[in-house]
């Protein structure tokens, strides 16, 4: 009996202690075990797109790429845009933190560094996925270097606390430009497919557009050699020949129809995925707009109207050419009870019940811009007449005239001004105005709040300051000269 008791007790004890302590998660995957199949890499690349949506919220799009140009003004409810319009930006403002772009870079790095670990049956698929990752890394660093100047160069996927790139210093901007050039070249080599499978994903056409933009910037702003102008022209010429791309007859349709033939690459927004595309900031407020005008025609939503097109934008660009059919779509006004309600129809999403969902895809590259880039390149090369006719290809639907600019036969600075003016109108609200002004070299003349301020902040006025949080998390990061406290 006693023996039996001893056996029973020891059995129970060993039973209790032998239950395994190795428990793997049931609903998530550990970092090591992730990269197994092609599906895993695809899901990770899809993650880059999701991060583009998650990280770049509506404020970032507007503050970083539009607000400083003076084309935007505060709407009917206050928001923080004042500091950006005035170009009085301080390191404590929420939106000067670069973490959003680095979070996207991290996902791209994850793919670039680990895609090789997974099994692929078809190298073409592997290369295409990799090219998407390189595209986004190049795009992110292109924005980082233009917004902050010297920035940390992170190319590893940080997966352990011992990684040497965990606490980086700011690398000189020339190194970053080199990284951007290398990445976008690599993307072009990896994706040679001459077709656009999906306009919501990065195709070769999108890669070529980014190449054109980068080479033009290097040539005009960073004063790189003429070779870059030639490279830009090669790239944009290929886009102009790309199958599946065609200008629409009506400006409005470019934005009202998703996946139309003019789009080269648009970031996808959808009711089931994300309904906060940046058009929400431009929408009017349903509490303030009188009932008879709500959604008829003024798009409203039950939140505040934060931003509108500025008075200077309207007088200088929108109202410049009478009969511009784009004007009323971009910006219009209704006066009621002594208040002027300025509204736009661009990027106003769709109605979901009685709530407005901002689901219009962000058109990052479209065919009209390819024509505009070509016009710019031709003008830089001195081929003014051809530049004019390229310009006409873009704006013929706006003025109802195939030879609007060809007839004026503009040359030299006048031509450049005209090209820039057209870009301001054609791409109004598409987050291109700020860098356009810098690239055309007229930012200190055309932006009212920057006149005479070339030497402000020790010459770094065009850059954003580094956010205080970036510095407190990594003391190797030093503030941009001119912005120190």
């Amino acid at each position: 009996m006693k023996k039996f008791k001893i056996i029973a007790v020891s059995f129970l004890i060993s039973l209790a202690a032998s239950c395994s302590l190795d428990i793997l998660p049931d609903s998530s995957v550990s970092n090591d075990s992730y990269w197994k199949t092609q599906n895993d890499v695809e899901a990770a690349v899809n993650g880059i797109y999701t991060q583009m949506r998650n990280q770049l919220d509506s404020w970032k799009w507007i503050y970083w790429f539009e607000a400083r140009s003076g084309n935007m003004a505060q709407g009917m409810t206050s928001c923080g845009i004042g500091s950006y319009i005035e170009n009085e930006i301080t390191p404590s403002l929420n939106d000067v933190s670069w973490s959003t772009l680095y979070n996207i870079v991290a996902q791209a790095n994850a793919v670039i560094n680990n895609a090789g670990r997974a099994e692929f049956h078809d190298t073409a698929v592997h290369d295409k996925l990799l090219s998407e990752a390189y595209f986004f890394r190049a795009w992110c660093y292109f924005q980082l270097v233009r917004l902050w100047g010297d920035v940390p160069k992170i190319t590893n996927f940080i997966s352990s606390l011992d990684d040497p790139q965990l606490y980086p210093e700011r690398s000189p901007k020339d190194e970053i430009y080199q990284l951007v050039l290398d990445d976008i070249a690599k993307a072009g080599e990896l994706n040679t497919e001459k077709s656009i499978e999906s306009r919501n994903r990065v195709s070769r056409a999108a890669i070529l557009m980014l190449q054109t933009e980068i080479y033009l910037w290097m040539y005009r702003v960073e004063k790189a050699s003429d070779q870059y102008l030639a490279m830009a022209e090669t790239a944009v010429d290929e886009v102009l020949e790309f199958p599946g791309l065609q200008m629409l007859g009506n400006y409005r349709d470019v934005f009202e129809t998703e996946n139309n033939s003019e789009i080269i690459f648009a970031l996808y927004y959808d009711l089931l995925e994300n309904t906060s595309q940046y058009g929400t900031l431009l929408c009017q407020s349903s509490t303030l707009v009188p009932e008879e005008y709500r959604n008829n025609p003024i798009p409203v939503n039950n939140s505040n109207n934060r931003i509108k097109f500025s008075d200077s934008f309207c007088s200088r660009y929108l109202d410049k050419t009478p009969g511009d059919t784009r004007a009323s779509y971009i910006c219009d006004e209704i006066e009621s009870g002594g208040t002027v309600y300025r509204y736009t129809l661009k990027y106003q999403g769709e109605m979901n019940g009685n709530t407005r969902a901002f689901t219009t895809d962000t058109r990052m590259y479209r065919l009209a811009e390819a024509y505009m880039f070509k016009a710019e390149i031709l003008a830089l090369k001195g081929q003014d007449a051809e530049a004019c006719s390229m310009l006409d290809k873009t704006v013929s639907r706006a003025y109802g005239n195939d030879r609007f600019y060809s007839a004026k036969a503009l040359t030299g600075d006048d031509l450049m001004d005209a090209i820039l003016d057209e870009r301001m109108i054609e791409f109004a609200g598409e987050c291109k105005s700020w860098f356009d002004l810098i690239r055309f070299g007229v930012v200190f003349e055309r932006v009212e709040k920057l006149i005479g301020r070339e030497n402000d902040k020790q010459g770094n006025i065009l850059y954003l300051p580094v956010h205080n949080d970036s510095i407190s998390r990594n003391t190797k990061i030093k503030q941009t000269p001119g912005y120190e406290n």
Partner: protein
Amino acid sequence: MKKILIFISLLFAAIAASGQNPEDEYVLHGKVMDQNGEPLTGVLVFSENSFKGGVSDENGNFSMDTWKGDRVSATILGFVTQTFEIAGQDNVVIRMEQDIEQLEETVVIGYGTINRKELTSSVSTVKAESLNKVVGTTVSNALKGKVTGLRIYSTSGAPGTQASITIRGGSSINKSNEALILIDGVPGSLSNVNPQDIASVEVLKDAASTAIYGSRASNGIIMITTKEGSNQKLTVNANVSYGYQNASKRIDRLNAEEYLSVVRPALARSQYASLLTQAHPAGTGNTETSAFSTRYLRHGETLADGWRWMWDPISPRKVLIFEDNDIEDELFEGGSIINAYLSLNGGNDRNKYMISAGYVGDTGYTPERSWDNITFRANNTYSITRKLKLISNISAYRTMSVPYANEAAIFSRGVHLSPAIRGVMADGTDSPGWDQNYQNPVYLINNIVNKRNDYGFRGILGLEYEIIDGLKAKVSGSYNAAVMHREYFEKANVYNNLRNANYYGSIDQTSQIDITLNYDKTFRKDHKISAVAGVSSLYYNIYDYNAQAHGGSKDDIYTLNAASEYDSATSTRERERMNSFFARATYSWKEKYLLTASIRGDGSSRFARGNRWGWFPGISAGYVMTEEPFMQDARWLSLLKIRASYGATGNNSVGRFDYQGLWGSSTAYVGASTWLPSDIPNTALTWETSSQADVGLDISFLENRINLVLDYYDKITSNLLFNDKLPNTSGFGSVDKNIGKVRFWGFEAQIDARLISRKNFSWDFGANVSWNMNKVLKLPDNGNYKNRVGGVQFSDDYYAGVGGIAEGERMYSVVGYKVSHILDTAEEAANAMYDERAGGYDPATGTKEQGRKIAGDYEWVDKSGDGMITPKDQYVLGYLVPTTTGGFNTSFRIYNFEVYANFDYALGHVIYDRQISLVNAGMQDGTLTPTKDVLDYWQKEGDAAGTEYARFDINDGSNDGQWNHYRTSDRNTYKGDYLSFREFKVAYNFSHKLLNKARIQQCQIYLSGQNLYCWSEYPGYMTEYSSSNRNLSDGNYPQPRIFTLGLNITF
């Protein structure tokens, strides 16, 4: 209603169980005395067959009906029950002996019990009578002010909500500071048990007492022991009460006329003057369909019922008309609480049982908020043989509640909307409010259906076998399942007509096996040994699911099948296991020298191989000086014990899979699945270790009439699981690392005294105070001065950082500016310092200039002395956590009446406020109601002599505002010190003579109150805690003030 009827019939059925009366009955007289020959009063002498009996009076005399051969018992608390057979005598003398065993308190510690006299570690006990003196609905609220070392604070007063508890400040910076809750030895939460089922609550505070629970014990342990059966005859206890409740705090704010007289001029002098003519609470553009009522009186119009009028403060010849509706009046409607409880307790030598059932119906005091709870319990001990016992504890509960889906939207935002809100729209519905984030609370509540059901089952089954005399083996297995499901539906309304429907829930299963060996033996009278050793395995298995859809067409069908668009459906599962070994031995010599030592080893699946196992020892010793021969004569000192303890415990509250680094699936892109990394791997992760030393003194005077317990403790946690912020270029926000050290220390004192004890009058008093302080000792190296994390820091000034967490500093600080004075004149303002945060809008010129001040602004203290006001001028304004907590209580008994009152208090914390400053800074475009203080704000030159407060502005806290009121400063960081009159009770006990006739042992009728009044400086709703997010997104549901009428009966 039905429930009450069933309850009452059960009551009568129990009464009807009576015995027979034989014919040869006669009246027996007698006297009851104690062992000293003194008469004993209040002794119940009754027949075990007929249940008839009597109670001894002041002289010890009693009389009762009995017959020859009847069995009679004499019983009273504190004395050994006497039972004897009637031999036919007329008179009888009964001698009763004091029950020494009962007088010595038994304390529950881990895996066993111990005598209070032999206890060498720091453990506080709250017995059932004290816990449930005023019967409440939650255990945590019943503990307030009753135990040293506990800080109990409510973050929301919503029905059924438990308060949060920290013991001795907790032990961690970033990880949980919540105590481990054990119910009959099995982990659980306080809402799993009915407070009236509890026999005692033990709070284990120092390392030596908690070390036996090893890796989960660093934050202290609250052990709940439920009532067990007795071997006496069946006793039935019933408690029924009905209470009325309403909000205990309201905010003192402006009425509609005052609101308009303040906000309209403020709008006129701001950049938002265009709102004056629009559909705004202070604007005149409101029409019949607007949510707010303010507008001008039209020609020939007469004022409608319920409307008021005033001259427009900015156009004095125009008449403004408006409604005046205080949203608090709509919200705080008042409600009721019904609490009914029945327990059956009894048995014989073979079988002891306790069965109980309880019901609480709490309607909350706001619309659509309720909490209904039904509990059931059956605790049973059955002796299969003399040596083998079967123990079972089974309990089940069902809670049906209707919580608010977003309490903050109501009590932190919507409740502040202007009183000019329309009471009722033309179509009879409620006004919707300002916008989606600031909705009229009543409108929001009516549109959201949020029902929650919780079902719980807890079962423990054990076998105890006595191997040889003193050596017992016990095997017990327990299984707990908590099923929660929640139904959410938003009816179509002005802000959202999608009809979002959400169905989600979880199944939480815990199973535990314990095998222990207990040995208790006294050798040669002087040596007493008590030891326990065992193994334990704990397993968690948790499922979660969540389904969302929208697009239905009907408002009264809440289920997802009515929706037309399916949004998402997910489910997840998590498992965890912990295996443990533990042992403890207690040795006492002559009850004078005491020594206890324990060890525990825990292996957890939360950590990587190689870091899984931790060993946690504890040791404590005590010296009972009053057992010395030379102390025996000091009769006034009945106990003097000195004790000391030391031990190590752990805190394992990391995520279950943190060390592995994780990838998780995220929102789809064009419908294709996406995966993103969520955590960076950290294989070196292990638990935090706390070592704590405790020194204590237990003193009792005058035969235990006055008891004093004093403790001093010092706790250091090393290997702090620090959520180290990673550089924002890394793709990850932070990672948990074991680096860092923090120290908590303090002292506790508790006194309870029976001041007066007479036959018909007694007076008891108790008080306790706990003081706790913390200091950070070591932080990860990050290049900052003192390795500061968070707070305000400057890259160009190494020493200027303030706030956040830093080595050598106290935690939980609040950082802000200090006000120097008010700039009374335009000249003073022109000469004021540049203020970086001020937008500088001057209404006189209509221009903006960053940093400029205007008359009526605050001038801040220039801490850095650089002539400018920048973030460097911030001070530490106070701390979020109190230093001193405590309580005091007193009770009187006069004849048959009892009066009881309990107070608790906390001192030393500040309330980091965003509620009051939100409204007094005119935020949200002035649509919110400021408090009455605003009437005293500066308005014109010369006012600075009579007021402390700067000018009222609209959107003071925006980029263009001056940030007078919205900036964190010593003006909006209030002292959090409070004194709460927590519990009150007046009871009448029916006399025994009256009760005897109905064979009832005890009957009490009472009137009680809870949360009667709270004295504090903070004008907002919640004073018991202050959160680091400035109370913006906290629930803030004010605590209810409850008055209850009840009946407690035992027979």
